[in-house]
């Protein structure tokens, strides 16, 4: 087994931002709230930060261990194994969902005649290849693509301002139908997607080069991406109008398509597709990597690389099998996954093992001290 790569602070930051923006910036986040969608995103961010604090708290208790290693310590070996397997399936499922999002975007926007499995397999093969070279490669690629994404994002922003296509009247009044519809649209969708998905990083915290900064840098990255998401959603609505923005599958794509500067700079959808592919790539890669890490612990596999291909293939077929059509996929994403999958895995189970930890704190610490040599 190779020595575990240590993630630098810069890489940690860029990975979080790419991960959070990933697929969330693509599908209209919080669009159930109509023209208040941007508010729903902010509410999601605030709630998501609390989830993150919980994950960081547990990390501080076990600074050397990832989730899959401290779970058995807390809840017992066998039950821990069960939970670990569930988490592995959860992350694989999420990877499959993001892959589906990504494939659907390309299909409905560009490759109408192409089967989704072709597009998806290209994506997953690339990810498997990158992870095969090690997490370090992914992290360093992240730095490069972060810079590119920022550059493209900024230029799109400038072009949107220059094209003067935003009508801020479209997002007024704020909470015009009252606050209840906004809150209803927010919970539990926006806190869990994408902010609560930070639970994947509980598998990566121990591999940070500077562990002290896990909280501060993580929070900064989360808040930054939350603000970008909220601003993007607001701009989508200001460009397209509340009706159109909430009734297209990919608001950002439709919004950017409206940029037209002097009949010359126009049809910039390709730029958006590029950033979306980038974000999707990193999100799927992180999910795949953490599920591989958990699988490695659960099945005591020595070489993590040998797990990449099997899990990747399962994710690939999962991405096609999760739903029979795109509408079903989006429906599940909005109505089923947040309530019955995200909430248990991001909130209920973590709270559950945190409480058990607090109760059994002393005995766990003792166990940790005696067996630390065999664990790491």
């Amino acid at each position, binding site marked *: 087994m190779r020595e575990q790569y240590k993630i630098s602070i810069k890489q940690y930051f860029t990975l979080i931002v790419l991960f959070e923006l990933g697929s969330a910036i693509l599908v209209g986040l919080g669009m159930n709230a109509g023209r208040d969608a941007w508010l729903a995103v902010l509410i999601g961010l605030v709630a998501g930060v609390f989830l993150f604090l919980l994950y960081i708290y547990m990390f501080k208790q076990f600074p050397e261990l990832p989730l899959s290693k401290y779970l058995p310590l807390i809840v017992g070996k066998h039950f821990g194994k069960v939970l670990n397997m569930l988490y592995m399936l959860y992350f694989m499922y999420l990877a499959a969902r993001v892959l589906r999002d990504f494939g659907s975007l390309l299909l409905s*926007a560009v490759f109408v005649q*192409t089967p989704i499995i*072709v597009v998806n397999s290209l994506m997953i093969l690339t990810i498997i*290849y990158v992870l095969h070279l090690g997490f370090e490669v992914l992290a360093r690629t992240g730095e490069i693509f972060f810079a590119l994404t920022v550059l493209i994002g900024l230029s799109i922003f400038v072009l949107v301002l220059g094209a003067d296509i935003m009508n801020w009247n479209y997002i007024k*009044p704020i909470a015009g139908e009252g606050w209840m519809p906004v809150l209803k649209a927010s919970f539990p969708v926006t806190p869990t997607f994408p902010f609560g998905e930070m639970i994947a990083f509980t598998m990566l915290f121990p591999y940070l080069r500077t562990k002290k900064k896990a909280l501060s840098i993580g929070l900064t990255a989360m808040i930054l991406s939350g603000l970008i998401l909220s601003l993007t959603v607001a701009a989508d609505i200001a460009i397209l109008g509340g*009706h*159109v923005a909430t009734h297209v599958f990919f608001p950002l794509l439709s919004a950017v398509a*409206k940029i037209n500067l002097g009949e010359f700079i126009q049809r910039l959808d390709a730029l958006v597709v590029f950033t979306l592919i980038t974000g999707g790539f990193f999100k799927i890669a992180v999910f795949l990597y953490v599920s591989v890490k958990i699988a490695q612990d659960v099945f005591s596999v020595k070489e993590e690389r040998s797990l990449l291909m099997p899990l990747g293939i399962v994710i690939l077929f999962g991405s096609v099998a999760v739903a029979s059509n795109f509408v079903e996929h989006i429906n599940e994403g909005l109505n089923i996954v947040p309530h019955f999958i995200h909430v248990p895995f991001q909130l209920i189970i973590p709270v559950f093992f945190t409480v058990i930890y607090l109760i059994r704190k002393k005995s766990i610490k003792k166990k940790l001290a005696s067996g630390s040599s065999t664990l790491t």
Partner: protein
Amino acid sequence: MKRITLFLSLITLPFLSGCWDQHELDELSIVMGIGIDRADNGEMRASFQVVNPSEVSPGIGGGGGGKQPNFTVYTSNGKNLMEATRNASRQTPRRLFFAHARILVLSEKVVKEKGIYDTLDMISRDPEVRSTIQVFIARGTDPGTILETFSAIDKVSADEVASKLEVSEKVWGENIGMDINEVLQSMISQGSEPIINGLSLRGDDEQAITAKNYEAGKPARLYLNGMAVFKHGKLKKWADGSNARGIVFVKDNINSSVINIDCEGKKDSVAIEVVRSKVELKADMKGEIPRIKVTAYPETNIAEANCPADFENKDTIFKLEKLLNKEVEKEIKASINFVQKQKTDVIGFGELIYRTDPKKWRKIRKHWDKTFPKIEVTVEADSRIRRPGIRTSPFQYELKNEADR
């Protein structure tokens, strides 16, 4: 490791060689304009204006030789737009490609009688059609004829029409560009209704659709003709001339325009060029029926003065400003009366009330149709005449001075 890399790169190789959805340029017919009409049997009749690439591009075909027309129009029928589109393939030698379509022309008769609803969905759903496509209504003619009309300056008439709209929007102000998204948005929103540009043909119909048209000294021309005011998806009335401009004014979409005012007792003798304009709308929510205050701030220059006025005296300018205010107020007022009489909220007063007081709006939105005509609107203009071009008083002022001496 090396073997795996080799294996991976080998299996990705066939995928990288090309795209599944490739469309070669010479297999595509580039559609520039789409027309939607009804056939006599009630089916949808779609027309597609398609560019003839060898004639339009300067390099190929001997510098646009002129042997063949620059574009051609295919017309086909179907139960819906999609069917009509695919039905056209029996006539077209290549696949129709919609990404460059710039105008969508709807039949006046159809939107008046059957409404606009059944025509828009495919245009907004198809990933190929860009949402910047401009919507027009063929006024006094049919979409097919509009698309078939040969243009004089640009090679493709759909392109020319889109440019006409852009220019007119910038300097004349009786039309507002309305793309497919804006039409949908204003149609869905409870507090607003769509308003769509009219497109007419002036001149000889027979000649218009032949290549002779651009050789003729007096070609038939397409021109923008008013804006159609909609109500529940049906064309209710045409807003023309000052009514149309008044609406554009209130919607705060005036870029530039020309307003005539009286001077020294001579009617419409001074032409004022609006350089930019800003409009503030305020809703007063006290009382049962909201009141709306419109304040316009046009910034203008004097463009033409056919009267003996003294432009070296600032009081003359202030006097003209006052007259200009009255003129602007009159025009806006008249256009608001017009839309209130048609009972269709194309300006978006409902949206304004929703923005100002959402709670109150929730109470009145159910019977907004009835409330809208009753709304009391006060109009105020506060205009500025900044400069009178590059000369001071008009020469007619000097003439008058000479005569007086």
